[in-house]
């Protein structure tokens, strides 16, 4: 089992976030977690993630000896209530205090692995990963290598998939997710990998249909499950992933590509502005109170 420094958003969202899912799964698998919740200037009121036993600490308090024994760091900022970019940038900047040899697994549901690595001093040690919620439902996690990784380790995807050197950090990531009972697939670096991007686009399209009064949220979800065999309706799925996360995924795709197809539906933008985050705070397309 590994000793893992976990950098998680300092908010308690009743366990309904990917960060909370992953912390619970890693703990259940027997990993030793040092949960580091950075002080985020933009969010002084934020509460730490409620975990048991409480091992929540600030990086300065962790101590050099324990830091030296860390096998790898797990950074779980996929969004933030008041702007995920600053939080992610801030925490990756602070993690520069880690020894240069420590690999960093970075959650890339709202950015590319290359962008995440660009905020981190030891950028060649980064492995990005992406997946949807709920974590217990999925059988597979996607892994992405940033461009900063040495070119001999970079494995181009698609038609040219070949083994051109083995990245030890990638192997470590595969082993970690294996310990949580998940398979992995390496994909070329991009914002949000494959499935979080597809589900965000399905949710966005369903939100446009809702905004235009094409049908009710219930009927849209029912139609997709019964008519197209979807495992979850796109709107209930967005509630589970978090509307702020879905919105941030779309925003990042639009920012990176400049393509109009990724613009978030105005209704989704307004729901996020209103603080409707989905299952996490019990209000989204559906009411969970």
């Amino acid at each position, binding site marked *: 089992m590994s000793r893992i420094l976990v950098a998680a958003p300092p908010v308690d969202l009743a366990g309904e976030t990917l960060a909370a899912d992953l912390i619970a799964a890693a703990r259940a698998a027997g990993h030793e977690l040092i949960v580091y919740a950075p002080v985020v200037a933009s969010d002084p009121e934020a509460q730490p993630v409620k975990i048991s036993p409480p091992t929540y600490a600030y990086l300065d308090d962790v101590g050099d000896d324990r830091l030296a024994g860390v096998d790898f760091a797990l950074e779980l900022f996929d969004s933030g209530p008041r702007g995920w970019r600053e939080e992610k940038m801030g925490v990756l900047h602070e993690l520069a205090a880690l020894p240069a040899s420590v690999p960093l697994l970075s959650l890339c549901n709202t950015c590319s692995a290359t962008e995440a690595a660009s905020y981190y001093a030891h950028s060649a040690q980064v492995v990005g990963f992406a997946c949807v919620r709920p974590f217990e439902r999925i059988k597979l996690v996607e892994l992405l290598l940033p461009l900063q990784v040495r070119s001999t380790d970079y494995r181009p995807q698609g038609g040219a998939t070949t083994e051109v050197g083995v990245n030890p950090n990638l192997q470590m990531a595969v082993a970690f997710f294996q310990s949580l009972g998940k398979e992995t697939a390496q994909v070329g670096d991009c914002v949000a990998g494959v499935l979080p991007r*597809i589900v965000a686009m*399905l949710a966005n399209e369903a939100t446009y249909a809702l905004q235009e009064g094409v049908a009710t949220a219930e009927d*849209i979800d*029912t139609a*997709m499950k019964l008519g197209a065999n979807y495992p979850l309706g796109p709107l209930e799925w967005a509630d589970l992933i978090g509307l702020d996360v879905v919105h941030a995924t779309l925003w990042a795709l639009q920012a990176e590509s400049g393509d109009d*197809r990724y613009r978030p539906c105005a209704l989704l933008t307004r729901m996020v502005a209103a603080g409707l985050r989905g299952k996490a705070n019990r209000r989204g397309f559906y009411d969970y109170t």
Partner: protein
Amino acid sequence: MGGGIVQVCAQAGYRVVVYDVQDAFLQRAMDSLRSTFGMLVGKGKLTAADSEATLERIVASTDLADLAPCQFVIEAAPESIELKRDLFGKLDALCDPATIFASNTSSLSITAIGAATSRPEQVVGMHFFNPAPLLKLVEVVAGQYTSAATIEATVALARKLGKTPVRVKDTPGFIVNRVARPFYGESLRLLGEQTADVATLDRIIEQEGGFRMGPFRLMDLIGIDINFAVTQSVFASYFGEARYRPHPIQQRMVEAGTVGRKTGRGFYDYREEDK
């Protein structure tokens, strides 16, 4: 699709008049129904007496006037707006003024069909999903001037047929064919950007997402040409909205004539297993 709808209606206890333009088509449809019922009886899912009674409720005709006594007409003709407008225009003169006209169209405007009749408030969409006897969903589509009473009557009929109706406003692609566009469109973009190959993308979408079938396997099954046509239709209907933009990979596959299972080759190669 028409045969499946006839089966569903007759099995629910309704008397059904089936109209088609040629005797040969009707003969083929009735033969297929008899063999379906024979199979159901063989499996013990239907008694021989029920099968016989159900078939007796169905009358086949090539004379449109035989539809005159029907209280509800469900049209499943080929997807041509001219054809459907012409058909409902004729039925408008033949049927009782109270009769409701439903179209099983998946892509045409209910409003445009309604405008060909003197009763647009009684023209509604009733979009079944293939195979109709198995899939539960029916999209009940309200055209611009469809009345609330017509919608409620259609929803009630769908329920009596054992279906789960959803109410939809008349918009291109309705719910399913529209909301599903990114499932194919984003997957094609991910392939085009060389994020992963076809098999890896399908594996991720099936194992991480829990989808029954990945988008490339599914496009091969539907037919890449059919899927491309639906994409182009929705894209054109929304006047070039970027979210519905087709992908050059689709066009290239259609140009190559390798459009999926029916041609032995699409995103995957089926020629070995088809031998």
